[in-house]
């Protein structure tokens, strides 16, 4: 192997003419055009010429968040895919892994992000939070406590919050669709 390792790189290849389109832009183009989303998820682009900022709408068809429509904003910066996309829930929802400011606790959006992951993996991960809310990793501590202690009550709270109701003094957004 030593022979190979001591080889000089092709000079021309080293002096690459970099294209003007940013690497992030190219990667997002790749990710978006390869999305393979189930019917429970769709994307909306407020400005179709800006592919770095868009909304994802999740409408779970099972689980306790069924018949809600949950919106997330995606903001992707020029460091993508070395940095994960910035994802926020744009509604106030009652969920152990989403706080009242819309921050989302999903491992692949922070500590477990890797450039090999893509927008599809993030979207699938978000949808999973609605099928299996995770009480061990809470952002909304009260909701997480409730889920741990009393699942029935938690489910009742979810239903109430989704109708735009008040749970423990907090007014939630109406997300029910029919």
């Amino acid at each position, binding site marked *: *192997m*030593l*022979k*190979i*390792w*001591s*080889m000089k*790189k*092709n000079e*021309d*290849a*080293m002096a*690459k*003419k970099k*294209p*003007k*389109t*940013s690497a992030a*832009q*190219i990667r997002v*183009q*790749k990710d*978006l*055009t*390869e*999305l393979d*989303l189930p019917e429970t998820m*769709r*994307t*909306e*682009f407020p400005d*179709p*010429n*800006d*592919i770095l900022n868009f909304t994802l709408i999740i409408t779970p068809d099972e689980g306790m968040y069924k018949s809600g429509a949950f919106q997330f904003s995606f903001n992707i910066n020029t460091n993508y895919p070395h940095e994960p996309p910035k994802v926020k829930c744009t509604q106030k929802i009652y969920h152990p892994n989403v706080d009242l400011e819309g921050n989302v606790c999903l491992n692949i959006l922070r500590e477990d992000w*890797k*450039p*090999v992951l893509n927008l599809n993996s993030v979207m699938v991960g978000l949808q999973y939070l609605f099928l299996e809310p995770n009480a061990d990793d809470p952002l909304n501590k009260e909701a997480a406590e409730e889920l741990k202690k009393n699942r029935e009550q938690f489910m009742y709270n979810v239903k109430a919050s989704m109708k735009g109701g008040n749970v423990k003094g907090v007014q939630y957004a109406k997300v029910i669709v029919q």
Partner: protein
Amino acid sequence: MSLSAAQPNGTSPSDWQDRYWHVDQVLEKPGPRTDPSFLAGREVQEFLRDKCKILVIGAGGLGCEILANLALTGFKDIHVIDMDTIDVSNLNRQFLFRPADVGKPKAIVAAEFIMNRVPGVIVTPYYGKIQDKDHEYYMQFNLVICGLDSVEARRWINATLVSMVDSDNPESLKPLIDGGTEGFKGQARVILPTITSCYECSLDMLNKPTTFPICTIANTPRLPEHCIEWASVLEWPKVHGDQKLDTDDPEHISWLYGVAFKRAKEFNIEGVTWSLTQGVVKNVIPAIASTNAVIAAACCNEAFKIATSSAAYLNNYFMLIGTDGVYSYTFEHEKREHCPVCGGEALEISINHDWTVEQLMEMLTEKQDIQIKKPSLSTPLKPIYFQQPPQLEKNTRPNLEKKVSDLVAAGGEVTVTSTTLPFSLSLIINYT
């Protein structure tokens, strides 16, 4: 003799006597053809047997041969990836598999077989796609050796290995040895990413898949293949509407066979059979065990020479044509100047001023040295046409009929991506 103690020369307690006698003839002293950097003796033996980690992609016809060859020449840390399961039709040539293994993953069965048969070799299988793995995974290997049957997978691994080369880290250069067979023909090549011609550089050497003119199929069939194409391309959609033809479904094949047979009779054409029907619609070329053996041997020979520097390695393309006698030819395939994978720069193309986006996309799909299926296009400012997601597709669809020159200034840049490729292509567009 203590069983646990490390042995000299990279041998281990599980090795039988004189296991490496033949191989050591080559490794223990330099010969007239050895490279000046070759250091005969213990160090190279230890590298091969204790340190070298090799990845085999594909555990099919070529893969079985490759795994056996590597294990017997003394590679001891072998990884293998394959996404397929064993089919009964594999058993005639994929000799690591037995009838009881039908339905099981090829990578896992092959790994177990080799480990049982050749003591001391560790084969680590992965049952899945090469695309599941990231740079970190591929970085752990010294060499990659491929026995694949798909152009797409080759383009993917080639582009991945090229993009991993880091000029500050010599070990990031992973030689890729690619074998391929088609009936009695075969090829073996050595690719040193960024240094020698890569797989993408030679894309224009591939034959176009045989397609017959639609008018011949519809009006003047002469061959049994024409009748089968007529059944699958024209009659199937007419009769079955939106239902997609599943070439793995025997009922679908039988239907095509029936229709093609009738048509053949009408035109007095002989030779439409069930297996020809399946062969035509699935684009099957029969696999020949002996071709696989020759090509796998050539590939493993290169792996051994590169890993040990014990002899000059292939520069860089070997082809075997066994259809009429036995003919082989070795040549240096040159780097393509504007290779989208290893050339690094934008590809300049000149198109007619009146061309529409749709015409440009057609050209990208058809052109021998590009061949991009279902491309998505953008300028640095905005999408031109995106295949997905639905909203952007709908939004950009009107652009298909627009002139490229209305969207992109002369000398402007267009980025092309496609699901099948791990890289993107940048085009500089000029008009005639």
